[in-house]
């Protein structure tokens, strides 16, 4: 799945807005990396991500650490680039033999690599949206719905929440908390969504 690839609204004019950290064990290695994945889960939680896999399903730290070696994947969103730097440094020191993919501005990712002594290995680049693009919602709604890599955030839900905020029945922060719920992978960024909602009302 291309997952975190097609997020719209990020710009080099606004660096360090978000970085998503994905840690994945190759399926053939899964059985040998149980402790490593649990340790990585604990480490990610220590750096207080804005959202993490399983959290939208109501999972707490213990469940997230338990699930990590079973699913073989961990995903978390950060709005703090320094936290990502420290996290990557700490995972590196653990030598886990686990793949790490960073999603965000290529310039931010390059900074993280340069500061941690790592080097970009493989790039995945979006060329954009093709086909029936007249069916896409307006720009700000698209910025929110593309934060779920599985297209599970409904544009109708965005509209409904914007209406509630305009009527004073909900704050932007509460709206953002609602909008990250459909994305079980925990890659919806509540801070970015809150900001975008503020721009929409």
């Amino acid at each position, binding site marked *: 799945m291309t997952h975190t690839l097609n997020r719209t609204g990020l710009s080099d004019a606004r660096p360090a807005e978000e970085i998503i950290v994905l840690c994945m064990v190759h399926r053939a290695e899964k059985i040998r990396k149980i402790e490593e994945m649990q340790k990585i889960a604990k480490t990610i939680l220590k750096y207080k991500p804005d959202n993490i896999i399983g959290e939208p399903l109501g999972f707490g730290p213990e469940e997230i650490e338990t699930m990590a070696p079973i699913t073989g994947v961990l995903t978390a969103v950060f709005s703090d680039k320094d936290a990502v730097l420290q996290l990557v440094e700490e995972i590196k020191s653990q030598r886990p033999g686990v793949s790490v993919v960073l999603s965000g501005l290529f310039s931010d990712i390059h900074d993280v690599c340069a500061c941690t002594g790592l080097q970009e290995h493989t790039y995945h680049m979006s060329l954009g949206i093709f086909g029936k693009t007249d069916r896409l919602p307006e720009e700000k709604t698209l910025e929110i719905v593309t934060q779920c890599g599985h297209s599970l955030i409904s544009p109708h839900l965005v509209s409904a929440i914007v209406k509630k905020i305009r009527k004073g029945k909900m704050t932007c922060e509460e709206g953002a908390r609602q909008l990250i719920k459909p994305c*079980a992978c925990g890659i919806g960024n509540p801070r970015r969504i809150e900001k975008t909602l503020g721009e929409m009302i």
Partner: protein
Amino acid sequence: MYIDQKLCEKCLDCMPVCPMGAIMVKDKAVVIDYETCVECGVCQRFGICPVGAIQQVDEIPYPRIIRAVFSDPVQTHESTGVAGRGTEEMKTNDVTNLFQEGKIGFSIELGRPLGGAYLSDLEKVVKKVTSMGVEFAEDNPVVQLITDRSTGSLRPEILGERVLSAIVEFLVPEASAMEMIDEMGRFIDSELDCVVTMSVISRADAEGTCAFSQRLRELGKKPYPNGKVNIGMALVGNET
């Protein structure tokens, strides 16, 4: 998914939650339209219904189960022969080395970021790239749906199924990648009845930069300023 009419209080709160717009009012009842629903399960997981009226059948029959496999990220259904919706693609490339220098990986994802896609459109893409002689990434559930590798035909019984998204992944020599981008862009715009994202995967060069990205820009392809980068963590400690 369906709504238990004995429990439903017709508050309509569930309607905007569905990414496909499948929850609607018909004959004064709130229902999930069977054809529009892709079995992603969000309506139930979201916990929007205060009385638990949104329910799932005990077992989704084949071929409809294909919808759930390709639409619900928390579901895997081995009986279809499709273990999960996604792939590892470049995420574990520092282990698999699937994407090597001199080759460019393509991900063509139908139905994303909105609206879903019928698998008949997926078949059109698979047939098109098969005719162009690409090398499919085998670690992808779409490949398991192909019945004829010489034509790219999919299982006929699934073509009427609609999914939230499905990804066709393949590799081409770097020298023909730009031509592939242009050709697939034209094909998608003219032949498919859905929204599609197209993306490319390239190995970094020895300095960690991406010469292919630079070529894309020089040729006016406008890749996003953001994307995904495998940072080679799995190799730490194994350096020679």
